[in-house]
């Protein structure tokens, strides 16, 4: 299991490739990547604050749960903090399982928990100033699935 909380960019392609290559028995690999996007125009950067210490523990706990519940061979979570430009990758998860259904469900579970239960806070920087991103009800609701 690989959990990383980091300021530095990560190489999505390389991480995905290595994750897939290292699996001995898994036939199914799912990855998810989140990218800073400028939906309304005018976004200059995204700042991500986190809770050092708790963040790593929360991500490890979430990944442990996913591995156990879906009998994953492995799971990966990388999440950046600090200042990110539009187009930069914020985070990625990867899951390795024998069957695709498990790999998909586990990746969705990881994302749903990451969104609402890992201590990250996003702030959008535009020309008009900075604004904290509000949590969405639908992200909280997504947890009821699990």
């Amino acid at each position: 299991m690989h959990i990383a909380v980091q300021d530095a960019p990560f190489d999505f392609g390389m991480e995905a490739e290595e994750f897939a290559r290292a699996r001995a028995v898994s036939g199914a690999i799912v990855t998810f990547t989140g990218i800073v996007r400028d939906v309304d125009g005018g976004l200059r950067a995204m700042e991500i604050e986190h809770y050092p210490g708790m963040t790593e523990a929360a991500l490890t706990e979430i990944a442990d749960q996913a591995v156990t519940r879906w009998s994953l061979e492995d799971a990966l979570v990388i999440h950046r903090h600090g200042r990110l430009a539009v187009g930069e990758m914020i985070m990625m998860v990867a899951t390795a399982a024998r069957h695709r259904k498990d790999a998909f469900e586990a990746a969705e579970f990881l994302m749903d928990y990451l969104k609402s239960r890992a201590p990250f806070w996003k702030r959008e920087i535009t020309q008009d100033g900075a604004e904290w991103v509000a949590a969405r009800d639908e992200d909280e609701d997504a947890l009821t699935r699990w």
Partner: protein
Amino acid sequence: MMDVLYFAWVRERIGIPREAVETQAVTVMDLVDELRAREDRYAAAFADITALRVAVDQQLTGFDAPLSGAREVAFFPPMTGG
């Protein structure tokens, strides 16, 4: 003594990221009431606790959670990771 941490707009409103607090608070809510009574910026930050989340010793919990033995309490808005 207990470390109290603030994140995101809670940190901005209170003006500091962390502080050591001398308290006999039995629950998180007791601590919130003590902080609210200090100054306006605390009262403003804790005005609506339904907009807040709390972690005791880095575990998410509720405002009715006991504080006995706790070393670190953190207040922050709902998380927006991913």
